[in-house]
């Protein structure tokens, strides 16, 4: 990487902005503003900085509607909003998906709209940490805020996640490197462990690497639990790990003062899915008989957890909530987005602050190509190619302030640093407009 000169040409610094990238929600960003543009970002990791800096690239600026020739054409806001409202009001199985990269404030009218039309509302948890939520619902949720780890933890285990690539400041800001109140020497006072089939960049930094085999997660955790109960292991190698190593690791985990387990999609999306998390949670619960252990899922988007929290307090269920019968229903596999698309049930799809075009499996995308899609987003992406109505939003945390919840559920008020492009509208405003317009259509048809 070539040396880059620090940015010196700016009008003002907006301090303590919250990063709108991953679930670490670092709230110490200084955004350098020049002529109402972001000239530089201090303290952010490369992922966060590039998202904030390169925001202008591929930016959606004007509402668009797909014409009869299949081309997206620029229209005024009224035309686009009316078109979207008409699609929503006439749908039988609408799904409103996304929400993880927008603010709680935008979710509020979104949920109201969902209730009004009897839609399904869902977020990216449905394709990422959904299994975690299921496991939490089955066996519990022993967690903490990240500062507890920073100040107390002497053992950290990352499994099924590679924060050095996906959550670059997780180790440096929260868990491993910082000097904590009871861990004054930072990294030197902690043991870093990675359980992962891959020798990931995080594994490379670790003191201990446990490369269990792919899909071996459940059997591996089960073996540690059995050892904790005093069992002698029968097999010499379990899930690819020699039994001696399992004994040694178990002993270390028992004898630490404060341990924290962080897990990612490597656990949620292998063979036994939510059961990997299920048993990992129970392992942490067992360890609390001996010493202090906590855990935390490595949430991806900066407000993916926020949506789950918001839905839980508003409607009692965290994601995949179906209002088609007038009351909320939550049934994984039935009221969840991918299943509704794979089964070709959904007839109108609204996506806000997400990119299913880039992330959904082929079967789901094949159906999306056949039904009307409404997109609320700030960037042109694969989903735009499928969209019939495009409503350009604004960038939460840079152009618009709003509330988000960090992966450990700490709420943050994300500031704005610059004004949004004049032709764009805030997500909250857009969703509210849709709500009002659908209400009007419903009223008129009574």
């Amino acid at each position, binding site marked *: 990487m070539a040396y880059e000169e620090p940015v010196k040409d700016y009008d003002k610094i907006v301090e303590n902005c919250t990063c709108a990238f991953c679930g670490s929600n670092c709230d110490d960003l200084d955004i350098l503003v020049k002529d109402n543009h972001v000239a530089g970002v201090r303290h952010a990791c490369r992922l966060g900085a590039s998202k904030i800096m390169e925001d202008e690239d591929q930016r959606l600026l004007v509402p668009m509607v797909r014409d009869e020739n299949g081309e997206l054409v620029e229209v005024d806001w009224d035309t686009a909003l009316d078109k979207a409202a008409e699609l929503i009001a006439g749908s039988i199985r609408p799904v409103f998906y996304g929400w993880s990269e927008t603010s709680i404030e935008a979710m509020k009218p979104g949920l109201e709209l969902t209730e009004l039309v009897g839609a399904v509302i869902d977020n990216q948890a449905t394709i990422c940490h959904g299994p975690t939520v299921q496991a939490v619902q089955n066996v*519990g949720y022993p967690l903490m805020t990240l500062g507890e780890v920073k100040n107390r933890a002497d053992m950290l285990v990352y499994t099924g996640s590679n924060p050095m690539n996906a959550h670059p400041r997780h180790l440096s800001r929260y868990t491993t490197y910082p000097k904590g109140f009871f861990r004054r020497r930072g990294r030197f006072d902690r043991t870093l462990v990675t359980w992962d089939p891959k020798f990931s960049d995080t594994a490379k930094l670790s003191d201990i690497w446990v490369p269990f085999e792919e899909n071996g997660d459940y059997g591996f955790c089960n073996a540690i639990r059995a050892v904790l109960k005093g069992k002698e292991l029968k097999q010499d190698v379990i899930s690819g790990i020699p039994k001696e190593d399992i004994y040694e690791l178990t002993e270390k985990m028992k004898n630490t003062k404060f341990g924290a387990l962080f897990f990612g999609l490597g656990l949620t999306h292998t063979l036994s899915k939510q059961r990997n998390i299920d048993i990992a949670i129970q392992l942490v619960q067992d360890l609390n008989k001996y010493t202090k252990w906590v855990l935390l899922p490595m949430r991806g988007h900066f407000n993916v957890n926020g949506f789950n929290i918001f839905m839980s307090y508003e409607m009692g269920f965290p994601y995949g909530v179906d209002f088609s019968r007038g009351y909320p229903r939550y049934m994984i596999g039935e009221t969840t987005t991918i299943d509704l698309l794979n089964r070709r049930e959904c007839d109108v799809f609204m996506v806000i602050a997400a990119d299913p075009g880039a992330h959904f499996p082929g079967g789901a995308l094949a159906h999306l190509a056949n039904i009307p899609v409404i997109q609320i987003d700030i960037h042109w992406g694969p989903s735009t190619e499928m969209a019939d109505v495009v409503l350009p939003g604004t960038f939460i945390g840079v152009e618009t302030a709003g509330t988000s919840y960090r992966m450990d559920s700490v709420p943050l008020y994300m500031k704005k640093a610059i004004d949004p492009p004049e032709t764009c509208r805030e997500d909250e405003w857009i969703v509210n407009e849709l709500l009002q317009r659908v209400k009007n259509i419903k009223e008129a048809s009574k």
Partner: protein
Amino acid sequence: MEYILKNGIVYDPVNEINGEKKDVMFRDGKIVNSVSDSAKILDVTDKLVMPAGVDVHCHLAGPKLCVGRLYRPEDERKGVKPKTDITRAETGFSIPSCPATGYRFSRMGYGTVVEAAVPPLEAKHTHEEIIAIPNIDIPPLTLFGNNWFVMQFAKEGNIEDLAAFVSAWLKITKGYGVKIVNPCGSEAWGWGGNVHGIDDPAPYWDVTAREVIRALAQANEMLGLPHSIHVHPNDLGHPGNFPTTINTIDCMKDIKKNSEYRNQTIHLTHAQFHCYEGTSWRDVTSGAQPVADYINKNDHVTMDLGAVTLDETTTMTADGPMEYDLYELTGLKWANKDIELETASGLVPFIYSGRNPVHSLQWAIGLELALMVENPWQVALTTDSPNAGPFIRYPRVISWLMSNKRRMEMMDNKEVHGWAAKKSALATLDREYDFYDIATITRAAPSKIYGFEDRGNLSVGSLADIAVYDLEPNNFDPTVNAAAVENAFSNALYTIKDGEILVKDGEVVKVVSSNHVHTEVQGFEDQEKRILEQIMPMFNKYYTVKFENYIVHDHYAEPSTVYKVNASK
């Protein structure tokens, strides 16, 4: 808009009105003593009229609740109701969704409900939920008992700095008062431990619960806050814990009160969980008598019941170690949530059953306390919702307190286990609450305990927060009609909040935003500024958020009711 609530039978203990037939008039949200001829008449002839209910201690908004909702879909699906033209869909039994929480309190005739535990770091979350809960005013209590700065000041005996810290943190969190939960014990839980009794120091900090409670009480009185310290003592739910409870309130005896309206310097919360005698769950008996005796002899303490309602519920408390004990006991799914530098917390679902001896004894102890403490002004009705039972069961607790016949019936019919009669004195207590007493423990005393002069009463100038129930006190015997009492208190004929009719015939007819109720100390600004400067290096080093992003911004607490307090030494 003007109204006359006509010919009701009014119970208003603050004004010593005990079942008088009279009109209640209100205009523009306030009680008045006369209205014009154009006032709208609400005919409630012979019906039971009280100020709207005031709940001193409930867990209804905030991070713990949300963990509960998120991880108990099996509870959420129990209370599912479709939306109506006025109300949104409802979910949940022990941990209802926010809209359901507001509707259900409103249907019971409540107007103000205190959220009992707010961790400062996540206070924004609590306020976000208050925004989502309609129809009731909500004062949140801020957690201080295991805060690192508090422990440090308490250790140093530095009361003035502590008072400045409390004053600043109430502003930062938009909190109403000072909550203390298992002081030093929740910090010990940071290492998987606990403390026992009030003289067992927290690891590292080397400060005891006694020191923390006394220091916070002195700071509370130095600021002259409207509410006293609100204490969940150590050893909750442990057999043999009643001496800890008495020691906790007794250590406050010499602390001088600095507030005109309230009488107490300490509020003991969910007392039921703190009144056990014995050494284990095998030989446990009721410890209600010695605690009640103490309270009867001392007026510096008030308490709320934490009455067990014998339901499947969700326990949740900032007492982290207690929840892990409960998990080990029941094996049911355990959630935990420790908050950096501030507190711990935990949750476990719990099934109270009348067939279980211990649960039956707990049921008896909750009622014993209400019947043994002589002065109802020292008692508030709670279930520590949802810990000892969901708040929708308050009317059932009322029906038990009003009917000795019903209590005896439950013990005779084996609706509760024999331990209720055998290991407590409940079967020997024939005292029965009348409507005046009920109005005292659900309205008058709670508002006095909190220093609310403007609610919990029907005085001229007070908020027009009024409940009317479909019972005719002059033609009705609550001692033999427990089911009818429960039904009437569950479904208010009218609930009026700030002069607006929100409930009619048990149904929500109007939805309004709830007020965030908090205090603001005035005259302590310099001390606050100095203390903030002093602690900021430690804050910046050990918290994981920036101070600027830590505070609860004004827009999270709107609309609000702010009680301004003049700090006086």
